[in-house]
């Protein structure tokens, strides 16, 4: 081997990575919450919302799901200022990721809503609940429970996708690795370390989602 690996050289840069991990976590958590909310809203519109706005949600979902995140991010960060909307890199990254996750979450949650047994709607109706109350109190939680694993996977995908945000100078894990390798020229070690950090965060994220599920859905079994 021409050059050996030297991970010791990374030790000095631990604080840089620590900052990167914090930023990636912040992005993922903020985006996870907002994206889920957007996904629920869009899924509600697509399944039982006002018919006039359904086509717009469909167009949004299709546009996002059929274009790369990188282009979405660049469009928001570089393109929007041209029409007078200037965002800092963190805001742009969060906006792009929320818009992205919202579209995927919409489709995932919609599937969960559509799997609701008809009897649940009938029971709610016979108890004089409105459609919105039925959605809010009866349909939503079991629907989320049904698709929680898919939602978790999507969130992990979004976190991996956040690596791209380093390209607009968001100081995440990837940005840290780029920075370090530009200083010590140990690119391979830097990216191995970054990869391991992402791997660990993904495991943590999955575990976190499992624990959140225990709180949100006290019942393991989604009945019928």
């Amino acid at each position, binding site marked *: 081997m021409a050059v050996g690996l030297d991970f010791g050289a990374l030790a000095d840069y631990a604080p840089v990575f620590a900052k990167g991990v914090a930023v990636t976590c912040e992005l993922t958590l903020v985006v996870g919450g907002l994206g889920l909310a957007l996904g629920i809203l869009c899924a509600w519109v697509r399944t039982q919302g006002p018919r006039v706005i359904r086509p717009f949600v469909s167009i949004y979902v299709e546009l996002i799901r059929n274009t790369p995140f990188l282009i979405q991010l660049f469009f928001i960060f570089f393109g929007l200022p041209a029409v007078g909307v200037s965002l800092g890199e963190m805001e742009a990254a969060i906006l792009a990721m929320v818009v992205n996750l919202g579209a995927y979450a919409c489709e995932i949650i919609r599937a969960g809503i559509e799997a609701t*047994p008809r*009897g*649940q709607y*009938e*029971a*709610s*109706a*016979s*108890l*004089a*609940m*409105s*459609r919105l*109350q039925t959605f*809010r*109190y*009866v349909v939503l*939680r*079991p629907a989320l*429970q049904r698709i929680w694993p898919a939602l978790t996977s999507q969130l992990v995908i979004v976190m991996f996708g956040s690596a791209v945000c380093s390209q607009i100078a968001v100081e995440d894990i990837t940005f840290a690795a780029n920075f370090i390798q530009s200083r010590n020229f140990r690119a391979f070690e830097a990216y191995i370390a970054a990869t391991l950090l992402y791997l660990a965060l993904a495991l943590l994220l999955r575990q976190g989602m499992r624990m959140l599920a225990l709180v949100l*859905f*006290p*019942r393991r*079994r*989604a*009945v*019928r």
Partner: protein
Amino acid sequence: MSLIAVTEVRKRFGANEVLKGINLDVAPGEVIAIIGKSGSGKSTLLRCINGLETIDEGSIMVAGAQLADDELHLRALRLKVGMIFQGFNLFPHLSAGRNVMLSPMVVKKISAKEAEAEARARLAQVGLEHKFDAYPDELSGGQQQRVAIARALAMRPLALLCDEITSALDPELVNEVLQVVGKLAEEGMTLLMVTHEMRFAREVCDRVVFMHQGRVHEIGPPDIVFESPKTLELRQFLGMT
């Protein structure tokens, strides 16, 4: 004056007319069993009275209010009439107590404390006060159905519609549910029930309606309907020929 007045109600599913002009008046406190073969339209009639199906012709009045198919009128109607289903339809993510509390809280906007007191009382009424915190999947079918009854009662309805509420139960669980219904009948609740439990119908009901091919074929007190059926179809249905 009758509590529920069904007048010349017709209902079609596509080309298939399931209800062909139904007339039925239910007095307050009356207990009525609807019997008949499957496909005779008995479940559809019940579902129409609760507004789960729209009707094509005729009218349905409940406590003087006309059934209309906008959400406001429907909800007003459903505040007066509760419904119990064959498949229980409990909310799986809520405990038994929460199932009972939900609608009073979100629809009637009563406080959580009041709703809980009400839920405990209604669960006690069906003999399940100790299952307040149990989830539906921890309950037997009979217990689930009793929770469903408590849930409907918590809305303080004027009448209850029961749609084959024991048909999905194992035979040994049927009685606990029938006992609860029998007790409600004694206490003066107006009940309209589609059922296959002939003995129960005979013992508890004031009147029995026999439906056949979308029409009220025979109607009368149980001893008359069961002892001396007038028509061939009812005799066949009761296995007397």
